């Protein structure tokens, strides 16, 4: 694992998303994000790691287009732009809570993005059912959210985010509320989906272990100031599994990330 300068993008390809000197100040004066530079390369798995309140959610939401930066810009160099110059962001978003519509079945929830894009009903249902199967919920199409466990609801939420086959999947502490066994299982399934569907993954988390296990790159944000502290590269190859979780390499990587995070908190 090596700490590399923040703005150095991988390779010569233009990044999928280029965050340039972005700051966000809320109406109440809170400076949630300060001067962040960040390139998200197509296909990579990046974790945003940092203590509570450091601005991870705010940054992620701005990347998604929910909330404008107060300063700086977030560009999508390779995405098509509409007449008014807005990029078509083509993304999926997973919140910390499953955020499902309680009146719709699992299938109904997953079809929603397609329905909004005017995909016809038959095709939308077929694609949603296929996506539900991919997240391990075959047979639960007709179940309502209240009939599902926390882990299963999260799977529905991920299926909904992926059903449009977005180029980038943004996740805001998606597994924070789950128990460890479920969390590990979902981490594995997420990695498998990522390898299979080849989207870019941005994963916000508090957990050093989770970020090391999942990502190729860990962006550590500093407490309160809303700045990027360090940009760590995780070299370990995929597929990763329980063997990786118990390896000395993993333990070492966790220690390095942990120490960086500690420094980030101390700042």
């Amino acid at each position, binding site marked *: 694992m090596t700490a590399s300068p923040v703005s150095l993008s991988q390779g010569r390809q233009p990044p999928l998303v280029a965050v340039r000197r972005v700051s966000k100040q809320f109406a109440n004066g809170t400076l949630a994000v300060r001067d962040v530079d960040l390139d998200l390369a197509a296909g990579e798995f990046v974790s945003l790691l940092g203590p509570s309140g450091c601005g991870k959610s705010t940054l992620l939401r701005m990347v998604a287009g929910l909330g404008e930066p107060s300063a700086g810009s977030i560009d999508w160099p390779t995405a098509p732009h509409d007449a008014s110059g807005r990029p078509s962001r083509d993304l999926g978003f997973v919140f910390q809570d499953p955020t499902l519509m309680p009146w719709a079945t699992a299938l109904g929830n997953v079809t929603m*993005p397609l329905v909004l894009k005017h995909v016809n009903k038959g095709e939308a249902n077929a694609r949603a059912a296929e996506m539900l*199967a991919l997240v*391990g919920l075959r047979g639960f199409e007709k179940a309502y959210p*209240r009939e599902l466990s926390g*882990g299963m609801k999260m799977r529905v939420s991920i299926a909904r985010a992926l059903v449009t086959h977005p180029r980038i999947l943004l996740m805001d502490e998606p597994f924070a509320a789950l*128990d460890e066994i479920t969390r590990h299982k979902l981490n594995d399934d997420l990695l*498998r*989906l990522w390898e299979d569907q080849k989207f870019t993954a941005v994963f916000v988390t508090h957990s050093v272990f989770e970020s090391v296990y999942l990502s190729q790159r860990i962006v550590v944000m500093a407490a309160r100031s809303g700045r990027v502290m360090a940009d760590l590269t995780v070299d370990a190859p995929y597929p990763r599994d329980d063997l990786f979780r118990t390896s000395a390499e993993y333990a070492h990587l966790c220690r390095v990330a942990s120490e960086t995070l500690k420094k980030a908190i101390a700042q």
Partner: protein
Amino acid sequence: MTDSTLPASNVPHDGTDAEARPVFATERKILGIGVSAWPGILAPIATGIIALAAWEMIVRINNVPTYILPGPLLIAQTLVTDWGTLSGALWITLRITFAALIAAVTIGVALAVVFTQSKWLEKSLFPYAVVLQVTPVVSIAPLIIIWVGDINLSLLICAWIVAFFPILSNTILGLNSADHNLVNLFQLYGATRWQTMRYLKLPAALPYFLGGLKISGGLALIGAVVAEFVAGSGGNASGLAYRILEASYQLKIPRMFAALVMISASGIAIFLVTSYVAHLLLRRWHESAVKREN
């Protein structure tokens, strides 16, 4: 992920999900109603029978004259003998009630939708809806009858005034209560206003709207009866309230009670029907209607 790695649907998925799978237990039923539901039905019926029996006894033992307090048996008898006049009057009152309720639902929901589209409109109009709500309908009914002229339309308007506010305010609350993150998600997918309304806000508002409907159903009946009372002395209305007034002038107290029974029964029926509709619409997903097994 290949198909071979997919869990079969009969295998627990997370290791923690096994207990969470929906199990639809079948309960033994008597007359189509589950065994556990019967005490809830029988208890109020038993209470009612005991109270009615006590009433009949008191009336008989004390020889209370029928023009002061008729016993339940006499009232029941009057209900049967006077059914011809009374049922006609009931029908007239119910017609106004339902027309008012339909108007309350259409106008209440439409206004609520318009208000959520424009905060500015809501701010300028909502206070007047409140004014309409807090003004006692008895006090404006005579004015409305004079202004409108047509008695049926006046009664309809009075009943509507009473019934429409709970629907309006509940629906506004419901439309604004959609999960904020879901609203964001719709925004991310570039949903139009209409799509957000149709697929997110209206379904989110449904439980609130139905709560309002339950209240408004009873209020529409009350509004219709009150307006009939006001109109009754001067107008040519022949709804139940008019029959009550008429019977009281003629000291036909049992008939008055019979008419009262019909009004209460109608109110109860409206409540039961609206509750049942709410139950049918919400039972799969809303906390208020789902059957808890723990």
